[in-house]
């Protein structure tokens, strides 16, 4: 068993290096004089998909390599730990969300949020046009399919919008649009960028009500690092985030290219190009705003943090503004 433990990360790294060298092309070859490359890992929160398109661009266009950083992108999954590898040091940075990060901190994990990829939370209520949920009040009298684990999210939405939770029938479902299409529920609690896209691919245009448009202010796809890394591995953090910012800035200009790159980079992930293109376009308004236009990708302000703290309080998470640390972004954006 021991042997595997040592062999496999090697293989992974070599494979990534190989993929990197192949895709970097000339840009990758033409970087002489780098004394050494630092190996770090970025723990993604889900399986490879265009959800992390900006990171793939950073790798593909050498934004990390030119700083002497070799970043392994670790996929997540339905049973994948995201926060523990960051605590354990396997990953330098993890992609979490403000609520998960707050929960982890409550349990003693020394995290700080150092950047925010999704300014608007992607949670949405998806329904069918014949029986739509367009505003929160429409939820009353409806059957909603969701994981019971997300009850606090629904409760928060109801509190924010004076909706009677007792009027909603919650049906526990797996994360899948089939129960909605089979008529087992009237609406689903899901991400605006996945199940509605899957339905659109089947020519079913769902009505999606973005919860962020109804007071649910919660940073998602947040970059987290430990206090220890912030103190001792600052250069690597800055280099990693610089690559992320550059990659995502390119992404905003051409989401289609990001989708094509994703499908090309991960031929074994079973990705469908049309689906990835649509997902890439739909997540743009969640990630880029006048705030990021002005200050750059990943930015947050005391105001957005305060709004997050209020939503977190509704979710039963008691955190203060010190959970967010903007020093890395400030160094990058020269604020």
């Amino acid at each position, binding site marked *: 068993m021991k042997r595997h433990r040592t062999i496999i990360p090697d293989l992974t790294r070599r494979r990534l290096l190989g993929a990197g060298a192949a895709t970097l092309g000339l840009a990758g070859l033409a970087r002489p004089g780098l004394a050494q490359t630092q190996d770090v890992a970025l723990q993604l929160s889900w399986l490879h998909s265009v959800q992390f398109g900006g990171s793939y661009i950073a790798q593909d266009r050498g934004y990390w390599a030119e700083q002497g950083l070799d970043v392994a992108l670790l996929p997540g999954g339905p049973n994948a730990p995201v926060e523990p590898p960051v605590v354990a040091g396997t990953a330098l940075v993890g992609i979490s969300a403000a609520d998960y990060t707050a929960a982890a901190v409550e349990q003693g994990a020394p995290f700080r949020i150092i950047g925010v990829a999704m300014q608007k939370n992607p949670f949405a209520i998806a329904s069918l046009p014949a029986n739509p949920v367009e505003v929160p009040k429409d939820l009353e009298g409806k059957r909603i399919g969701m994981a019971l684990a997300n009850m606090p999210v629904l409760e928060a939405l109801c509190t924010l919008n004076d909706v009677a939770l007792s009027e909603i029938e919650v049906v526990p479902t*797996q994360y899948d649009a089939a129960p909605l299409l089979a008529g087992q529920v009237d609406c689903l609690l899901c991400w605006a960028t996945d199940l509605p896209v899957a339905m659109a691919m089947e020519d079913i245009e769902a009505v999606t009500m973005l919860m962020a448009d109804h007071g649910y202010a919660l940073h998602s796809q947040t970059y987290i690092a430990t206090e220890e890394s912030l103190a001792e591995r600052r250069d690597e953090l800055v280099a990693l985030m610089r690559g992320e910012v550059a990659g995502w800035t390119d992404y905003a200009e051409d989401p289609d290219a990001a989708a094509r790159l994703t499908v090309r980079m991960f031929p074994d992930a079973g990705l469908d190009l049309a689906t990835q293109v649509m997902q890439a376009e739909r997540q743009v308004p969640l990630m880029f705003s006048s705030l990021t236009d002005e200050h750059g990708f990943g930015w947050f302000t005391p105001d957005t943090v305060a709004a997050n703290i209020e939503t977190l309080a509704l979710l039963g998470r008691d955190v203060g503004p010190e959970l967010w640390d903007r020093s890395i972004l400030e160094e990058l954006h020269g604020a």
Partner: protein
Amino acid sequence: MTAPATRRVARPAVPVVRVGPLAWRVLGVVGLLLAWEALARLNAGSYVLAGPVAVAIHGVEHAGLLGRALRATLVNAAWGFLWGNLAAIGLAAVILLVPRLERLLVALALLVFCLPLVATGPILRVAYGPGDGPQIVLAALAVYYTTLLALLVGLRAVPRSWLDLVESYGRGAGAQLLHVRAMAALPYLAAGLQIAAPAAILGAMVGEFTGAERGLGVLTIRATRALDVDATWTIALLAAGMAMAAYWAFGALLRRVASDPPALLLAPPGPALRRGRRRGAAGAAVMILVALALWQGGMDALGLNSYFAKRPGDVLTFLVTGPEAASHRATLLAAYAETLAYTLPGYLAGLALGAGLACAITLAPGLAAVAMPVAVALRSVPIVTTAPLLVLALGRGSVGTITIVAVMIFFPTLVACLQGLRQAPGDVIDIFASYATGRWRTLVLARVPAMLPAFFAAARMGVPAAILAVTTAEWLATGRGIGSLMALTASTSDYNMLWSAITLVALTAALAHTLVARIERAVLRVYGPEQLAR
């Protein structure tokens, strides 16, 4: 008419599917395919079922992708299969050389085997980092216990006189092991490997859920979320096909190494029960202490961070001595009660169905032609792909979950009971035949009592299987009970609750196993006292 019919079944042939003539089997398969296609067409638009035609088209169109995924999963499953079985062989050898350790080691092996996949997966991922480590370890964990049990029976299935012969040459236990026991155990090992092969594939797929780059498990997740029913079913069938192929391949191996394959599941209920009650309690205490020491020591040795790798003391504080222990207990026990309410009916239904169908096949051997392939297929389709489909088809209420548990229990029970029914002594059957006793009476009076030891062996093995089934279904499909609680706590960093749930599930498995063994002993004292003497 009665005698030839029964005699045909009484033949000691293990390849049960050969019972029916070939024509029956072909007809059965064609009929099933037609029914499946019809069902799929009737349910078109519900995104639940894809028919054989759609599956075939999807398979051909995505042959390259599916082939690469299949290879990734199979390679990991094969490594896990190898390591798991080597571990089982090592454990069996230790037990044979130091018999006093048997009770402890087998109990610990059971405990580890019962650890829920939803909980062990993320921990292995943290311990191994990126790569194939968790897939391989989960595959190994899925196979080692059944192989160990098979070996323990096999290594003892040796005539005393052979061992005496070795001793008379002045050779010790090592020589006995090498020259006599290992040879005698070969057929049992092959039989154990046959059961283990499909399990390794399931383990590898679950391992992929912890963050893998490729594999059938990865494609399953993608397909379910993308409403790609054709892909979901193609992957499920591919995985099932591989599992069945492995099952049959080791079955063929088994027939080569053993002219008269062993009645594997006729393992006696273990040495634990032959002890007095007081010594039993002391043994249990030792077992718990060793398990706790391994838990604490293992985590310390691996240097796992206490943020997610909780130690026994943390769980004690969380559940008993801490300030909010009462509310923690309430949450845990509520989920636990919900889980038990699904597990028990499913477990009992699976046992009843397996035993019932075995009896039905004995009465009407033609049934085997249709029933056996369906039974093997049901059992081989990895539960990670079937659980969401079954729940979607049967609803989110209790029926779906109970069915999943029953399906997992049903097939091993059927196989064991068919073997058991054939154990009825030939002369007893002849006496019944000579009095022109009907098939039904022969079954009830002669065969069923002979079946009981095998039935109970299946009931014991069904305990971990039921726990695996229910926690997986709750995690992936219904979102209720302790399986869902474990998934939730892992995502919200509530690792104290996660480890509390793991402890509770493992303890339940051990207790349920003991309880079944007790019932077994009470029943066998009446119907099969020869099983208890050794």
